[in-house]
């Protein structure tokens, strides 16, 4: 059983990442798809932990026979490759078309004076969701800072351009205070509901029929702040086209002193939302580690 924390780093050398961004100023990411088809094979061969995690998802959780699960594992990686290319293309300034599903929920929440919390996952292209979010209020994003220098630099530049504010994840947990300040000031807060770091407190709950660990922090913060909570998934439809799915997980009503129970309720709603989106886009969950065994 693996208990390693996921490194969370984007693959490739600094030179490769910078070259991609330069290249996408001139060419469409689709031009690189034939390279991705082959490149991904190398990734699958070398990335034991990621391969095991994705294979487990297709074979043991979605119930596909072994050979079929291998085929879908490849398609899952392929979809990831396209999503990553789209991210670099966004940093190069390329535009995509985005439709917002349940836009009225988002508009209603944005028109209220209080802030709200957005929980996303490693499903779809969550980074592009931030870049195409209707920015009527300041949005604070809890962000892992351990990625490569090129990714961190470009992410920071894209965030600054969009007016997004980064709350860096801190090992001592002090980012929780910044999350509270953001919400308490009527702003929006974006967190991941499926990323675990070493030492994180966990909530256990079933997803796709088997119990897994989820980070307790983001769900407890959502429960304690007593503000509305939504899930947000930016799903890739076809080239240059995405759909941003919005679902309300909580109205923010919670009996005083009962944040633990309310956190579990928000987690259950979040899991339902994840299962709903995965039923439509099963190849777009990019958990390249053993999610059910962490």
């Amino acid at each position, binding site marked *: 059983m693996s208990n390693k924390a996921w490194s969370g780093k984007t693959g490739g050398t600094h030179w490769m990442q910078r070259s991609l961004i330069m290249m996408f100023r001139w060419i469409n990411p689709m031009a690189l798809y034939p390279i991705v088809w082959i490149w991904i094979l190398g990734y699958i061969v070398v990335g034991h932990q990621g391969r095991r995690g994705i294979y487990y998802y297709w074979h043991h959780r979605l119930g596909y026979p072994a050979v079929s699960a291998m085929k879908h594992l490849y398609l899952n990686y392929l979809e990831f490759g396209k999503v990553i290319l789209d991210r670099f293309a966004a940093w190069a300034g390329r535009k995509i078309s985005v439709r917002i599903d349940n836009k009225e929920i988002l508009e209603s929440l944005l028109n209220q004076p209080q802030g709200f919390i957005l929980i996303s996952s490693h499903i779809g292209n969550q980074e592009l969701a931030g870049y195409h979010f209707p920015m009527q209020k300041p949005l604070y994003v809890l962000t892992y800072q351990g990625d490569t220098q090129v990714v961190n630099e470009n992410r920071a530049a894209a965030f600054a351009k969009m007016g997004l504010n980064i709350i860096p994840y801190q090992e001592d*947990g002090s980012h929780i*205070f910044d999350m509270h300040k953001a919400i308490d000031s009527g702003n929006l807060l974006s967190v991941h509901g499926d990323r675990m770091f070493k030492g994180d*407190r966990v909530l256990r709950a079933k997803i796709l029929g088997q119990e897994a660990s989820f980070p*307790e922090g983001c769900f407890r*913060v959502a429960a*304690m702040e007593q503000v509305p909570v939504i899930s947000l998934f930016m799903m890739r439809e076809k080239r240059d086209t995405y759909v941003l799915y919005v679902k309300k997980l909580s109205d923010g009503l919670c009996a005083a*002193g009962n*944040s*633990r129970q309310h956190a579990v309720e928000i987690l259950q709603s979040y899991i339902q939302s994840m299962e709903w989106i995965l039923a439509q886009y099963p190849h777009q969950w990019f958990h390249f580690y053993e999610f059910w065994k962490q």
Partner: protein
Amino acid sequence: MEELKRQLKQQIIEAINLEDMTPEDIEDAAPLFGEGLGLDSIDALELIMIMDKNYGIKFADKNESKAALQSIDTMAAYIKEHRTK
């Protein structure tokens, strides 16, 4: 002041769900985090909410909150000076 400290301890026990503890089990000067009561950053937010909802105190920055939330003694002293309700 003693009544405030007893009240605080009770609020902490309820918020953090320290089922086996009574206010008498928490020493006034003992650290609430780390080797003391063993609270962590998630619990810290519970304390921040106690300060906000029960005493109308909003911390301006995290260093100020860290200093105020060290122990029951520091919390009570901070509340006495800054409470708005």
